[in-house]
Each structure stands twice: as C-alpha cells, then as structure tokens.
C-alpha cells in the first residue's frame, strides 16, 4: 500500500485505536468494520474484543497474551489485505421503525426545532425522510448509530443529561441519530418514541440489526403507538 489508510495509537495499556484517514468516509467506515469482522473471525490470541464505530475501531487485548506492538504490526498487515470498497453486506435488511413524534412537547422536539429555526413538523419530516444506514452498535445496549438527518445545524446535547432515558426513545445529537434499546442515562435530545421492542436478551447479539443494515422512520399517531406497543423489531 502506498499511503497509510489508518492511524494506529495505543488507548491505554490494553487497547489499540485504529482510525481511518481515508478521504472517503464511507470507505473508512467499511474499512474499520471489515477489520473488526476479520479479527473476530480469525480469533486472534489475546484479542478480547473489537468495537468498530464510524471511522475507528477500538481493539481490546489481554496484555498477558499479546503486546500492543505485536498486535499493531499484525493489524497493519491485515489492513493491507482488506478491500475497503467491498460493501459490508451484499443484501442489507431494512427495518421499518414507527415513531410517535413528540408533537405534544413532552420531550425535546420543540427545543431541537427552535435550535434549527424550523417547525416541529419540519423536524419530523427531515427525520423520517432518509433511509439510514446502521453505522455501528453503540451504547447503551447496542443502539443503532445512524448518520443524523439533514438538519441545517448540529444538534446540541442537553446541558444536563437525563438520569433515566426510557427504552424505545428516538434521539438526535450532533450529526448523529439513534434509537435507545435499553433504559439508561443519556444526554441526547429526545424527539419521539417507537412502540417496538428492540432488545432481545435471548438473541446474540441482543439487537436485530447489524452494521450495514437500513432503518426507516415512519410517523404514527397515539392510537397506532398503543396497538403496536411491545411488537418486536424485525426486518421487512
């Protein structure tokens, strides 16, 4: 390879962080996920876990079994052989997610709209228009991390994070969007809630989607929300 496609740096004494420096962000995202899948499948001794995200992968090791230097050399070798043009999934699945948007002002939709100088209805339209690619599984509980809707500005995080964000809420922050599969504290503004149950502790992973799958949000009313409450999230 003529130019380095990643920067590898230690992240403590038991993890390496691999960050893509490819100009093409899509290619960088594919690269770190292909890397994660390769390392997973290879069962590299001493590697405990790989956490691929948007442009980076955190690779956690057991320092008793492998050194960060040796792992770094190995990863450089692996990355040279990866084709970052290959799609993550040949046949991405699509998940339809009905959302009761927060038009009653119970959550943060009005605040988000005000910060964008848009109406709440415009925010709903912009949020439910795109088909989103699941970029990675994040905190908490395997949230599908999505590129945010095409709002004019990044969405500010809440000045004071909520101690309890219930499961099923739909939120946005910065240029990102997600659904929360499990109740947890959180600082992202909430713009609606889905009646679907995302988390299934009997499955592995606990969530039905994987990076590369697609998500579409559809506005619904309170009655439909009630009738769908507890339905499992499944692909189309």
């Amino acid at each position: 390879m003529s130019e380095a496609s990643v920067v590898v740096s230690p992240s403590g004494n038991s993890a390496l962080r691999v960050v893509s420096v490819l100009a093409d962000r899509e290619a960088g995202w594919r690269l770190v996920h292909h890397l994660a899948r390769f390392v997973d499948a290879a069962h590299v001794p001493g590697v405990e876990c790989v956490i691929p995200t948007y442009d980076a992968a955190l690779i956690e090791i057991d320092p008793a079994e492998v050194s960060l230097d040796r792992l770094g050399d190995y990863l450089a070798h692996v990355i040279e052989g990866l084709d970052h043009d290959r799609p993550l999934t040949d046949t991405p699945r699509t998940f339809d997610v009905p959302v009761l948007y927060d038009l009653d002002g119970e959550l943060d939709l009005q605040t988000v709209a005000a910060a964008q100088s848009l109406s709440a209805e415009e925010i709903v339209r912009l949020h439910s228009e795109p088909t989103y690619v699941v970029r990675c599984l994040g905190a908490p509980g395997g949230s599908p991390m999505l590129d945010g809707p095409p709002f004019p500005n990044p969405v500010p995080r809440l000045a004071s994070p909520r101690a309890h964000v219930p499961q099923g809420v739909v939120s946005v922050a910065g240029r990102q969007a997600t659904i929360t599969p499990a109740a947890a504290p959180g600082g992202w503004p909430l713009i609606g809630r889905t009646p679907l149950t995302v988390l299934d502790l009997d499955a592995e992973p606990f969530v039905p989607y994987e990076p590369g799958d697609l998500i579409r949000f559809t506005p619904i009313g309170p009655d439909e929300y009630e009738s769908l409450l507890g339905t499992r999230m499944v692909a189309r």
Partner: protein
Amino acid sequence: MSAGILTIVEAGSTHVTDLGRRRGPRYGVPVNGALDQRSARIANILVGNPENAALLEITALDLEFVADIDILIAVTGADGHLTIDGVGRPSGQPVSVRAGEAVALRQLQGGLRAYLSVRGSFDVPLLLGSCAPDSVLGFGGRLAAGATLDLRQATSPLFNDHFSAELYSLDVPRIPAGFVVDVTDGPDIDDFAGTADRLFEQPYLVTPTSNHIGLRMTGPLPERISRGEVLSRGVPVGAVEVPPGDELLVLHRGRGVTAGYPVLAVVTSSSLDVLAQVRPGQRLRFRRVSSAEAAARTRADLVALDALRLRVGAVFAALDALSLSTTGRTLL
C-alpha cells in the same frame, strides 16, 4: 442439580459476578464484571476455582449467609472482619465452613469492595457467557436477604484434627496502600494542549456520584482546546475524560462502550483495581507512566498470580494426601 444451597441472611450490597462479559462491547454492551479484577482472581485461585468463576462482590456493607453443605471460601479485596459462627477467621486464605455455620463479613475498611469465592462456585444464569450484572440490560442484580444461590460442590472441612491450628498461610498479594492511579497518555491528549499536565498536579477528590460506570472527581481540570463535533468512538475502560461541568470522569467497567468525548489519559489495567477500592470522599493522585512501565507492571502481577496458583495447588495436593491417610476424608 445443585449440591447445596447458600442462603443470604443479610445482603448489604452484594452481587454475583465474574471477570466480565468480554464479548459484550462488540455488541454495544459494557464488559462489567468484578471492578477489582485482581482481588476477584485471587479469591478464586485461593479455593482452586478457575479465575473466571462466579463469586460474590461485596460493596461497602455487611454480608451474612449460611450454606446447607460444607464449603470452602476465601475473602479478598477490602479488609473486613470475617467470622464463622462468630469466630474470627483470616481473609486472604481458604477457610472451611461447616454446613449451617453463619458466615459474616463486616466492617469493610481500607477499601470499598471485597470478594468472596466458594470452591466449586455457583450455578447462575449467564448472558453472553457471563453472570456479571448489567444495570442497563436489567440482567442480574443486587442480592436480597432470603435470596438463595445453588452451590455446585461440597468441600469437606480442611482442619488440622490434632491442633485445630491453621494448616497453611499463603502469601497473598495485598492491595497497594494509598491511592495512586497510574495512567498512560490517551490517544486524544493533543486536544488538551498544555493543560493535560494538570492531571498530575494535585490530588483529586472522589465524589458520591461515582459508581461501576465511572468515577467522578473534583480537582484541577484539564481543558479541551479542540471544539466541534466528535463522532462516537469506542472508549476503553479507564478512559479519563473532561465532560462539560466541573468534574473529571474516569470510566470503569460498566462504561458505555461508545462516547464522543476525547480521551485524555487511560488508567492502566493494574490501577483500575485501585480505583475499584476508592470510596467517595477519598482523594487519589494520578501518576503518568509509559506504556512499557504499564506493561511491565501487568506482567509482574501475572507472575505473582501464577506463583500463588502453584502454591495453592501444592497446598491442596498435600492436604488431600494428608486427609486421605489420617481421616479417610476426600477433600476435593
């Protein structure tokens, strides 16, 4: 089929846990598990268990239980007053308990968390291969008085029939005195420009909002120079961050696996065990170490644990032989 039942009499704040859910972070789920990994490993080693066997993590408060079979236990971590039917017994050693005797661990001090292993461990539900509680997923949880745990194995008492003296005294690695927390430079240290060194200037005071997800502390705050949106990335356990507000945040094993804050420094794996023992209201000091020093320390810890495992194995083998020849009891 369980060999016996352990019944909690006084629960305090006790959880069944192990070394953690190592496959979890791949799926957005924190690793969790014993916060003081070294003490948990030692507790299991002392009773001849695999190091990852399920054991009790006791936080700050008193614990009391009874088992309906003979068991062998060991207590490590924070110092406490261990009694069997009211008689004081040593921590950091395998201790025999007869069926029906009350085991109590009280007055934890010098640390926040103690670990109690039982030879043969417990039959408990697993999630992704681990019994570690996860407060976000709602898996596992704090034991309540009256709760029962299925024991896998009875262990006949290891007592010296003639003198009822201690049969062994194992040299167990101790918790380091004083709270010094080693960190290596984080991957985003440049985001803090010249202010990163503030981390090492003065002690930090641990605040009461600290828990298994992270410790919050007040003290001189390094300042993030860079601005703008940071994409969520995987953050390591031990990440030192400066979120908005007036506190420093150090992530522990319950941390959300992705976050959007720059990582200033990362606590070494050995010092995460130190953090597990710091109580709110106590002060700690950060010390910068190189990656090489951190790696050397980790190796030294492992060598010490390996040596302990060998000694325990030798003691059990000798006691087994002794017991078979003098009393006919089978210990293992």
